[in-house]
């Protein structure tokens, strides 16, 4: 469960480039809910995810995760509660480390790291079983460096890594945007499976309105640092991409945006 109360984030305060990226976001996300987040460039989507992960600290407001007030916690401290997959496949894993080393890193998330061997016999076997379940044949490549994998494989392993430490919240920041369409579909299906099997509370930022409506239980639209649309259930089921576009245009003050190819999908 995530509770966000009136958070504000400003970048470059007091400079000519000052940007009020979040202007009072209020939100409650119950446990196990899968929320998709859309919005144009600069709407505050990534900043919002960053503020949940701890990369960006809110200057005002409060964030609670699973009952703990994490507003002032930094990223490493929140990592025990929150798992993430980034847009750039290179960003979410260590290219120079092996697949199993990356998994061992993720498995220790939220725990104190001591001098025990990171890869004992038992753990290796556990990792092999988990990665075999992806169905990508990676179980025989545990000693390969992560950098040798394709973007799709890296995102798949990153998703798996997100589940290794038992955190209950998953943040996906356009994690399929850098992939080709077929691979993106595979990663999205895997996402759906992993979220369901692990009962994860999930926020997925996407540029695709189609994805935003097809996946998850609830859709948020952000605009200029505020939540301008929040739909779920039947209301959401009745929505289609043209509706969303129309709603979106209204938020932009009636400006026609159907030619904005980034938003159609």
């Amino acid at each position, binding site marked *: 469960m995530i509770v966000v109360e009136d958070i504000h984030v400003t970048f470059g305060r007091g400079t000519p480039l000052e940007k009020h990226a979040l202007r009072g976001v209020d939100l409650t996300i119950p446990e196990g809910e899968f929320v998709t987040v859309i919005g144009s460039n600069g709407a505050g989507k990534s900043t919002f995810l960053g503020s949940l992960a701890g990369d960006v600290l809110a200057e005002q407001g409060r964030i609670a995760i699973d009952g703990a007030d994490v507003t002032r916690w930094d990223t490493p401290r929140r990592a025990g509660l929150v798992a993430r997959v*980034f847009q750039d496949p290179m960003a979410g894993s260590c290219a120079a480390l092996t697949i199993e080393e990356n998994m061992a890193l993720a498995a220790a998330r939220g725990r104190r790291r001591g001098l025990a061997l990171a890869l004992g016999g038992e753990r290796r076997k556990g990792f092999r079983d988990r990665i075999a379940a992806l169905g990508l044949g990676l179980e025989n490549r545990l000693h390969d460096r992560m950098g040798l994998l394709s973007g799709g494989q890296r995102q798949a392993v990153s998703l798996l890594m997100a589940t290794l430490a038992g955190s209950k919240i998953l943040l996906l920041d356009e994690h399929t945007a850098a992939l080709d369409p077929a691979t993106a579909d595979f990663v999205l299906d895997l996402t759906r499976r992993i979220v369901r099997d692990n009962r994860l509370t999930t926020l997925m930022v996407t540029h695709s309105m189609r994805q935003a409506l097809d996946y998850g239980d609830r859709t948020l639209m952000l605009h200029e640092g505020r939540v301008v649309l929040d739909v779920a259930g039947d209301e959401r089921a009745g929505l289609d991409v043209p509706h969303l576009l129309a709603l979106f245009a209204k938020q932009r003050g009636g400006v026609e945006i159907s030619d904005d190819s980034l938003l159609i999908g």
Partner: protein
Amino acid sequence: MSEIALFGAIEIGLVYALVAIGVYLSFRILDFPDLTVDGSFPLGAAVCAVLLIAGVNPWLASLAAALAGAAAGLVTATLNVRFKILHLLASILTMIALFSVNLRVMGRPNVALLMQDTVLTPFYGLGVPDHIVRPLVVGAIVAVVVALLARFLGSEFGLAMRATGVNARMARAQGVDTDAHIYAGIALSNGLTGLAGALFAQTNGFADVTTGIGTIVVGLAAVIVGETVLPARALALALVGCVAGSILYRLAVQVALSADSIGLQASDLNLVTAVLVAVALILPRLKAKARSTRVAR
């Protein structure tokens, strides 16, 4: 090359192998170009020499030297992590400051160890010539350090340290306190260098403030030579490569200096080393460039 010169080269190579491992930790594993070693090496020598003269047990004196080196590393790490000074500049500041510190520690520019017991004393007079005892004892210490460090880097803490150097953003997202790992890694790196300084003082019988000049370049040269002769992905092998690189580097220098026909003198050492490191750094770049232009055609 005489037998004594050969074993002398191996001995000094083994002493600097600890520097090479320290440099490998900072430059390669943490991706933190740290020049502090130019100060922490003579610091280790100075601390050890002063303690030996004061009658302290040589092993304790060596440990104290390692701790002093680690403290110097912590200063650099603090300047960088806490006060956001560029890592290179932070380490240069510490290095310059250590020159004065080392003079204070010794009270004069150099200290001779003539009659003092060292970690080597118990092994002299066992029937093995002194010039062979020294590389054997230092080699044993280096072997222990390599084994311990390989195990450490395979631990959860060590793995997190490696991740910090490779992809700090990912490491933080996985709950790694990257700042703490930079502190620990730079302290460890300079601790090993301090220990190397202590062994240098004990094998050579003196500590001198000027012995630190160029330590970083010698360490880097050893790392690069090691990577060339032993291009290993496994960490333990990479550490062994640092040791091998350090010894090979010293042997090459010894050969170059003892070949009269080239006309090099001992004082040319730093120039030779700098040229060697520069060439080793430039070659891969030129090779890659040659390859890419070929592809472009």
